[in-house]
């Protein structure tokens, strides 16, 4: 981390260019944006979209993944669809979604979620294929309701797959959120980066980037990892 900062400082000093501002200039830009209230406003807007798109993608993708993983016939029928959406470029989905559903928040979040759903489906489907039949039989003998079986037998077995989908998911979603903000929203980190790109203000672009990366690191260490540790509490650790 320190080495990277040093390298950056030295290169910026050698380059002496607007295209590569020094860490000090970026820190100053963060201060300016923070004091004006813009930084918090746009970061919160982006974070909200990331969260909404993530919840929608995990819920819909998880449900589809479980159904396709448990039902061979449906899986055969819908597998080409999954592959199609998996390979559809994010930009195409975003542009079409804005054209068909208008430049609104729902279209924006829907487009982001739609980019992520196929990944979730593929991961969860793999997990749903490898569910232990022994537990399902136990549930049948003891008359578990569908909801009880889902909550206590299916979802705990899928937890590692949901964790994997979350890891890759949050990263993908926040990248796509920036694109939808750039193309059709009037706030958010993506919108600000686009604005400062037009002003050729690299310091402010880097300021927003760094702050948002920092926010995502905080989410990772303070939210995702504790949640995962909680879900894994029953495993006897080998350490």
């Amino acid at each position: 981390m320190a080495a990277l900062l040093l390298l950056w400082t030295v290169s910026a000093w050698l380059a002496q260019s607007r295209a590569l501002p020094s860490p000090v200039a970026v820190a100053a830009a963060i201060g300016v944006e923070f004091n004006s209230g813009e930084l918090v406003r746009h970061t919160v807007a982006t974070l909200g979209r990331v969260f909404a798109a993530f919840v929608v993608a995990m819920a819909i993708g998880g449900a589809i993944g479980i159904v396709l993983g448990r039902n061979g016939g449906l899986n055969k029928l819908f597998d080409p669809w999954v592959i199609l959406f998996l390979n559809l470029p994010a930009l195409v989905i975003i542009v079409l979604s804005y054209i068909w559903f208008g430049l609104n928040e729902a279209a924006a979040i829907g487009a982001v979620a739609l980019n992520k759903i196929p990944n979730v489906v593929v991961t969860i489907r793999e997990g749903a294929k490898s569910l232990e039949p022994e537990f399902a039989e136990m549930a049948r003998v003891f008359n578990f309701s569908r909801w009880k079986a889902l909550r206590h037998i299916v979802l705990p077995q899928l937890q590692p797959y949901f964790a994997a989908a979350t890891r890759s998911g949050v990263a993908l979603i926040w990248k796509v959120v920036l694109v939808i903000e750039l193309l059709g929203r009037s706030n958010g980190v993506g919108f600000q980066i686009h604005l400062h790109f037009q002003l050729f203000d690299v310091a402010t672009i880097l300021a927003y980037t760094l702050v948002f990366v920092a926010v995502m690191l905080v989410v990772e260490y303070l939210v995702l990892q504790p949640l995962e540790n909680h879900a894994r509490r029953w495993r006897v650790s080998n350490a």
Partner: protein
Amino acid sequence: MLDVNIKSKQFKSSEGAELDVLNLLQFVCEENSFTCIVGPSGCGKTTTLRCILGLDTDFDGTVSVDDTHSRHKMAAVFQEPRLLPWRTVEQNVQLALNDVAVSVNNATFHELFAELGLSDHISLYPNELSLGLARRVSLARAFAVNPSVLILDEPFVSLDNETAARLRRLLVKVWSARSCIALMVTHNIDEAIELADRILFFSGSPASVGHEHRISVPRAERSLEMVKVIRAEIDVLVAGG
């Protein structure tokens, strides 16, 4: 009363060939009886239990339970304990019950844990238990639902002799205090003699009930010597038939 009447049961191999597993398998278990099924491995004992439990419905015949207490519940103790590793001992047992039963039976529930010597372990996860303890939890789960029929599939296999003997005594104690039909598969004849009122010997391929042996000696009097005597009687019977 448990009435099992399986006319035939076949398995399809991966090449599509049909293999007869059970043929004209018929027996009845009376109220409060303890029946053991003994037979060579691979003779269809576990398949029979799966048909009775409704886990395998692809057979020709009927399985019916007549219960005067109007409980229509079966419970099973599987070969492996099949506890949910992500739920504690207490949650594993509670989950087998429906929500109403949990709140109503909380006291009897803890009584059951105490009887099986599990009171100190209820907040542990199954991975933290020895196999013997996990088997006890599996027994607790089965008894907790107050079943009319209790199915046990080699529940004491791969335990050391001492642990298995202790678990057998526990099973008899807990089962005697409740009323239900117990049907257990085992490959250990001495174990069957110690526990059962009646032993069904499966034989043949496809399997059916070859011999039936009733044990009239009360359980309390079945010492090691007595088990040997009964075993000798059975050996003569099986050899003679």
